[in-house]
């Protein structure tokens, strides 16, 4: 298939704290990868580095063969990287539909909407996550589960090749998690590359064929979930709240 993302010796320090410490890995096109680790391991920082919200102190990031380390965020989105935020960031004064329309106004989103028009594409994206009946409502009054789905939908609006999902399951009930799991599975089947950060390990481990484990900024394991879980070093890093 081919490698879509390469991270080489990536390091990020915040003052005295090394949040990401010499991390290297590759992600194949079309794969579904989980990124786990205890709180503070550096998972969100790693996402920030890949999506362009932080600049690394050293190391490089290669996307589809191009060195994107110096590219800014919107340029990376233009290349096909899209991310969600752990704490949802909806646009508070706009309706849900407008939230999606903003994403559709990005260069890739506009290209995707050339045939059917931005309004209809945005409606379709909302419908696919099940929020279409709330299209004209602003996010302020919506429950957390809906906002998480909105976050997911907004990431899809820019038609990404690589989707970085930061804690897509946190704060959701089991049924709501199932909805997101189903969407992720469908996207994966269609050939998109997805990296998931998660704490809800039971769902994550059942879903992803490959897991990266981060601990104190270092990549300590990389492999299938059942292999990784049995490694002593991972056990010792005490994987979150779930049973290991």
């Amino acid at each position, binding site marked *: 298939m081919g490698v879509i993302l390469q991270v080489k010796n990536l390091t990020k320090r915040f003052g005295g704290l090394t949040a990401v410490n010499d991390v290297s890995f590759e992600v194949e096109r079309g794969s579904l990868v989980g990124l786990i680790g205890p709180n503070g391991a550096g998972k969100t920082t790693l996402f920030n580095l890949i999506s362009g919200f932080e600049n690394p102190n050293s190391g490089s990031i290669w996307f589809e063969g191009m*060195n994107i380390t110096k590219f800014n965020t919107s340029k990376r989105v*233009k290349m096909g990287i899209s991310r969600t935020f752990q704490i949802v960031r909806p646009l508070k004064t*706009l309706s849900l539909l407008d939230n999606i329309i903003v994403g559709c*106004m990005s260069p*890739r989103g506009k290209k995707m909407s050339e045939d059917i028009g*931005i309004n209809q594409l945005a409606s379709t994206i909302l419908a696919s996550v099940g929020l279409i009946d709330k299209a004209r409502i602003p996010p302020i009054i919506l429950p957390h589960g809906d906002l998480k789905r909105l976050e997911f939908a907004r990431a899809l609006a820019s038609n990404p090749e690589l989707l970085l999902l930061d804690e897509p399951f946190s704060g959701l009930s089991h049924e709501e998690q199932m909805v997101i799991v189903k969407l992720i599975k469908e996207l994966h089947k269609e050939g998109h590359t997805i990296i998931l950060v998660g704490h809800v390990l039971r769902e994550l481990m059942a879903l992803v064929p490959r897991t990266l484990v981060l601990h104190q900024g270092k990549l300590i394991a990389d492999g299938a979930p059942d292999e990784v879980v049995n490694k002593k070093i991972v056990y010792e890093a005490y994987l979150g709240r779930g049973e290991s």
Partner: protein
Amino acid sequence: MNEKKESNRQDQQDDKVQIVLTRRPIDEPFKIFSKHMKKRAKTFIEYQVPSAQDNLKSWITSFRGGIGLMGLILVTFIPLMLNDTVYYHTFIMAMIYSIYAASWDLLSGVSGQVSFGQAAYFGIGGYSCAYFIIYLGFDWFPSIFIGGILAILFGLLVAVPCLRFTGPYLALGTLAFSLLLFNLFHMASLSHIFFGEQGIPVPTLSIFSFKGNIITEFLIVLIIMIICIVVMLAIFNSRLGTIFKAIRDDETSTEAAGINTMRYKLYAFMISAFFAGIAGSFYVLHIGKADYNIYSSLMSFYPIIFTLVGGIALISGSVFGAYFYALTNLFLDELFDFFTQMGFFPEFFNNLPTAFISLIFSIILLILIRFTERGIMEPTIKHSKTLWDLIIGK
């Protein structure tokens, strides 16, 4: 695109790693959407987003639309009926300030880029207009647009350094530019370039118009104001406006969605500067000269005051606030004249300094800020609607 990939491709030492050039077509929507698209007939009739014409129709037939249109009729015909220079003057200033305040609202309220130096574009517009009329012999009509365009250029000049900052630092940067202009245009030593204390005296607009009187000036400014406000409202309600609001709400999130926020912030500065420049051109043509006071910080604060009084991030709120200021000033003026005529403390009311009205207005402003959260236009409309419903018996 493929050639670019070849040249950027890293040197492969590891044979196992290949970089594939085939990708999913960029314009193909996700297949997970297709099943929703198949329900197209049902989906899109049900979830149809109303068109601009539908929105306009529903606005006109609503209570707000009724109030808006009635307001428009009032501000057009009341001065015409009263037919006195004082009233024409008040309403012309109200209209100029409306355009000016709305320009600030579009930049700061709608797009979230708070500007404390709006007078810079107002003044550049005014000075440019005056310069082209007096020194280059242009007609007033093109000079006004040239004022707007040169204001855009200055807006870019301000925006490029200032947009590196956000929040209070952006505001201070814009203020710095307007104060810079204030000093440049005041300095006697630079008066051979920047006109100094004298500024540029200009015959007023009422002289340029073919009838040569203030009524024509009033009508010209009215038409231009309606056009400017309608254009700004159109931007506000358009997708460009949606992006501006998105940048205001959460710039990082908007950037993450793929929007080049820096470019759109520059657009906001340019559009705002254009309308401020137009307003500045009319201001200079009305008062009869372009002088350095047009760049004062008070002039920068006027649009902020008008917009906050009326209601921020609405565009219509700025218009309301500007009229409120002009009409309150007029009212207080008339009130004090009335007191003088009636013989109440004539020594006091006859010799009032003009600053006294500003003092009263400041007190009114403080009271308004204390008791209304988001300006007085929305509560006024709501209470009017309650009253109207009561009258028609709902």
